[in-house]
């Protein structure tokens, strides 16, 4: 092997490389695609988990949608309000004042709900709903507890609770929406992080039917509606729904609920206390009404 040979090989390959390099350099100029300089900046502000909760294919897709004005600056829930404000600044928009939202499961059934049969198939809720008309639970609306939402969550924020229904860890939840997508019964909703009173049922059957299938179902009796002093809870389609704009978090509805279907679930003592207070108030009211009637009667005389 001659030394010249090595130089020759190096030279030829070097020349080849230079040619390719030049072609690529020219191609880069010819085929240049202008990228908006805001795009990488926006992408930096996103969570970067590629969770897909925003509905776009990954964080890059979301950044593009925000840039194109197709998605709001708050599109990335996991990034939180600080980053939404940053994105708004990049986009030259006003920072939105949105409240932090978290996921909430509209069911606390689990072992409280009557089971029709023991399901031993693939541990996936959608699969379970395909078996025998989806009647694993007697309740057509309840949480099946096979953990499709748990598998979907990238933030370890939702788990199957001690009684077999899914429970959201409010602190870990970023409201990315993956669990909402995963739940075949559409039981998971957005609720404000700051609120603590939530309805734990979504059974839309009439009271008697709802009561039969689950021990903690909403029977649409309207006790909560009558108890609420702020007009914040209403029975709609046979199930109680909270209006979070009005709810002050007094938890009176939860204590009034005869089926314990509203969170925070009161202890028996609390319930007793509440009942006694209600009774006393009712007596006072009756007495006042009686007194008023008597006064009226004497006046008439």
């Amino acid at each position: 092997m001659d030394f010249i040979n090595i130089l020759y090989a190096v030279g030829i390959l070097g020349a080849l490389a230079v040619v390719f390099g030049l072609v690529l350099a020219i191609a880069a100029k010819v085929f240049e695609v202008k990228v908006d300089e805001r795009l990488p900046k926006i992408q930096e502000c996103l969570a970067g988990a590629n969770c897909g909760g925003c509905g776009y294919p990954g964080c890059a897709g979301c950044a593009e949608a925000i840039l194109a004005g197709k998605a709001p600056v708050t599109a990335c829930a996991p990034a939180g309000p600080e980053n939404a404000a940053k994105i708004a600044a990049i986009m030259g928009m006003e920072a939105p004042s949105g409240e932090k939202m978290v996921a909430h499961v509209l069911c606390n059934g689990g072992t409280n709900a009557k089971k029709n049969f023991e399901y031993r198939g693939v541990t996936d809720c959608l699969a379970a709903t395909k078996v025998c008309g989806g009647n694993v639970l007697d309740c057509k609306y309840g949480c099946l507890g096979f953990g499709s939402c748990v598998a979907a969550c990238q933030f370890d924020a939702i788990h199957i609770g001690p009684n077999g229904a899914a429970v959201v860890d409010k602190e870990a939840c970023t409201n990315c929406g993956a669990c909402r997508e995963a739940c075949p019964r559409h039981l998971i909703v957005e609720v404000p992080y700051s609120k603590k009173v939530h309805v734990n049922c979504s059974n839309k059957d009439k009271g008697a039917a709802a009561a039969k299938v689950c021990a903690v179902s909403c029977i649409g009796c309207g006790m909560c509606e009558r108890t609420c002093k702020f007009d914040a809870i209403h029975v709609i389609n046979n199930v109680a729904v909270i209006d979070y704009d009005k709810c002050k978090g007094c938890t009176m509805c939860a204590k009034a609920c005869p089926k314990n279907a509203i969170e925070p679930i009161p202890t028996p003592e609390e319930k007793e206390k509440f009942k006694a207070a209600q009774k006393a108030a009712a007596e006072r009211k009756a007495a006042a009404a009686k007194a008023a009637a008597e006064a009226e009667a004497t006046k008439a005389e």
Partner: protein
Amino acid sequence: MSVTTLLAISLGAILTNNFIFAQFLGICPFLGVSKKIDTAIGMGAAVTFVMGLASAFAYGVNKILIALDLGYMQTVAFILVIAALVQFVEMFLKKFIPTLYTALGVYLPLITTNCAVLGVALLNVQNNYNFIESVVYGITGGLGFLLAIFLFAAVREQTEFSEHPKAFDGFPIALITGGLIALAFMGFSGLKVW
């Protein structure tokens, strides 16, 4: 060269000498992007595309090297050609077919270092294929890759839900699956058409 030769080359590339299951080339993307059928097909299509192009270009470069008495440098030269080619194709697609560009996504640059692509260029030289044979071998080799990764992804989607020992979760079960499919592909080795 006749149609029969081309048919024999195609069948060999797709079935009997499948790049993944018989020659064990391009295993990295085969394992890496086979979790979903959609992405697997995207990767397979991208590989087919690049393998076809690379065969054509490598053929030309090989001719130049032989003319210059530098045949022994083909491996290095091919790596250079493929890398440059993929870069070029990426830029071209980005400009003119952005939908395809986004569909291929990260797979296109990944192919730069795919040994199946380098393998096809080297095998073309080894087998003394002419230009048309080279291109056909490249494209059908890519189709073989596509078939393999598609089958594998389809099985993997099912194993996601299957019950298997905890220790086999993820890659172990995937590797076993791949091994079984490779065994099945050995059945094609008896196939003779010429």
